[in-house]
């Protein structure tokens, strides 16, 4: 069919209007209802040290990005108090009283799993950055998305490169919290040990309330390992590392902390203890990617701080929900979920992608090494990147069977 000039001009004009006016039209469509985005972090209690940065990051994302996405976002913070019962109660109140459908955050896996289940019942969307495999594994659901790398990837990107770097280090000892998350890290570590011919010379479990690790470190020293692998997290990994340094273990063996919380934890541990220790982390401020450079500039400009894993986790979870709304052209959770599945984007760690089958973001996990004081470029320059990579279970291996 011959295209007439009149038709061509008409179609081109219509196309230009559509493209040029789309953000405005989208904005008007979504702004007709001011969309509520609720962040859920421990703002009080033992986990406030990482909860508050998470909330700052989420708020910053909303302030900086909502307009660009053509969105009118109403931001609400909920204090989960680091307690699943209290966190869920507050989320339920928010859902029932305000009809809020979009939630981001959680620091503890127990809170995230409980909240994720409730958000799913209400047909909302929940984006989190916690660690337990179950979030995008056995307990996955259509409402829940996760940005952070779970335990399989954390072990693959820390233990495997270290085995390659130190081929003579054949004897590894583990210290593990007796908890689902700890068992998951241990199971993945043991699988790698078997595959790589590493001798697992011993493991000490400890309770989640433990603060005195000298007994476990004495067990470890008695087993004469080449590497001490810390599978605990938070203040427990801080105390274990600190006490291992006290016992002179840093001078004799390699110490690896698989699951570090980032800058806040490095500040707590201190340079002299962290020097020479290998840590695994979801994020580092020195990541060389366009997405991270943008985030670092934004944090320095608008929040007067260097971004950490906790704050970037909050930022990206909120950002991705908004990207989903923009891509869907709607604030309907079902449409946002569909838009997020398979989404590829420039994230803090470079090119990232949201897997459709389990709602897990495929991103890098980092192996870092503590710097000596003399090599620090600034007071917050604690670590350097040794290696990084993406390791995730395939759909066939995954325990996630989403309805």
């Amino acid at each position: 069919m011959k295209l007439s000039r009149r038709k061509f001009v008409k179609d081109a004009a219509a196309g230009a209007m559509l493209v040029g006016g789309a953000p405005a039209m989208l904005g008007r469509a979504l702004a007709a209802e001011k969309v509520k985005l609720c962040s859920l972090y421990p703002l009080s209690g033992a986990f406030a040290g990482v909860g508050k940065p998470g909330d700052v990051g989420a708020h910053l994302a909303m302030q900086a990005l909502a307009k660009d996405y053509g969105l009118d976002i109403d931001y609400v913070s909920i204090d989960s108090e680091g307690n699943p019962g209290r966190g869920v109660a507050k989320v339920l109140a928010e859902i029932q009283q305000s009809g809020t459908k979009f939630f981001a955050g959680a620091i503890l896996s127990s809170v995230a799993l409980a909240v994720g289940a409730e958000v799913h019942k209400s047909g909302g969307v929940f984006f989190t950055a916690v660690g337990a495999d179950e979030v995008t594994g056995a307990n996955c659901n259509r409402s829940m998305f996760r940005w952070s790398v779970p335990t399989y990837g954390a072990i693959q990107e820390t233990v495997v490169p270290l085995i390659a770097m130190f081929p003579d280090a054949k004897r590894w000892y583990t210290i593990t919290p007796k908890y689902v998350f700890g068992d998951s890290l241990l199971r993945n570590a043991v699988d790698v040990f078997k595959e790589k011919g590493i001798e697992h010379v011993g493991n000490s479990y400890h309770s989640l309330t433990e603060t005195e690790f000298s007994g476990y470190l004495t067990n470890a020293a008695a087993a004469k390992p080449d590497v001490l692998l810390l599978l605990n997290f938070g203040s427990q990994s801080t105390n274990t590392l600190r006490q291992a340094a006290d016992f002179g273990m840093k001078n004799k063996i390699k110490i690896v902390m698989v699951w570090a919380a980032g800058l806040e934890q490095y500040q707590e541990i201190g340079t002299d203890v962290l020097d020479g220790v290998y840590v695994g982390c979801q994020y580092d401020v020195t990541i060389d990617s366009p997405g991270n450079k943008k985030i670092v500039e934004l944090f320095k400009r608008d929040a007067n701080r260097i971004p950490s894993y906790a704050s970037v986790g909050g930022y990206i979870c909120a950002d991705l929900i908004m990207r989903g709304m923009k891509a869907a052209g709607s604030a309907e959770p079902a449409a946002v979920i569909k838009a997020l599945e398979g989404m590829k984007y420039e994230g803090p760690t470079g090119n990232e992608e949201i897997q459709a089958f389990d709602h897990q973001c495929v991103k890098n996990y980092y192996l870092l090494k503590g710097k000596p004081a003399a090599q620090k470029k600034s007071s917050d320059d604690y670590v350097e990147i040794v290696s990084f990579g993406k390791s995730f279970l395939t759909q066939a291996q995954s325990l996630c069977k989403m309805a």
Partner: protein
Amino acid sequence: MNLYLIQVLNGLGIGMIYFLIAVGLSVIFGIMNFVNFAHGAFYLLGAYLCYAIAAATDSFWLALAVGPLAIGALAWAAETRFLCRLYRVEHMYQILVTLGLALVIQELVVLIWGPIGTHVSAPALFRGVLSYGDFAYPKYRLFVIGFSAVLALTLWLLLERTRYGAILRAGTESTEMVSLLGIDIFRLFSLTFALGAYLAGLAGVLAAPIRGAEPFMGPEALTIAFVVVVIGGMGSFAGALAGGLLVGVVQSVMSSLWSEGANVMIYVAMALVILLRPRGLFGRT
């Protein structure tokens, strides 16, 4: 050296810190019949004052000298201003008020120093380890054991060889009789409360280089203190020492025998002591 022998030595080291945390609480409860839930907060404050003074002056020793005194003074002020009004009320109200005081102190710590924990370096003199064959033990922990032993001896001398100690010991038997003998019982209470807080603060200062200072370490110390006091017997100095060492050794040895249960075995030990000797190892009827 045998692993279990090392664990016992380890346990003695931990136990001395537990003794320091608990002895103040034991004396306060024994003398004043006063349940002090702010005791852990004094320990917390001790750790943070250690951090603050050491950071400002680069001297752990100054922190060790000044920190506990400051906490003792704060406790004296709290006792003379409002805690003294609680002596004649039920224990429940004492718990409520002192728990409130503990929460206020904790939140003030968060307000001043932030929610993230801090690192405190051991004094330069005691950095590093002492090695004996394959066995290496931190010099600082050896210092803590030695210092606590000297302090325990000093406390014993204070209780056994001074007039104040005699009054304190009499007070654990009967405060009414002490009062009838013309001794200002309220001044005794203030001094005792301040001493107990001083000892808790001292424990916090000594513990800071071992486990750092973080805002939620108070409840953990309080739990241990109550366990030690129950095991050792309320109001008993010897009981606090025996209880602290027993808890430390149980925790340490169990980390080799049943690592995930090491923490729970402390409470099993407490339950066994209560069953076999309800008043504690050195408690009076």
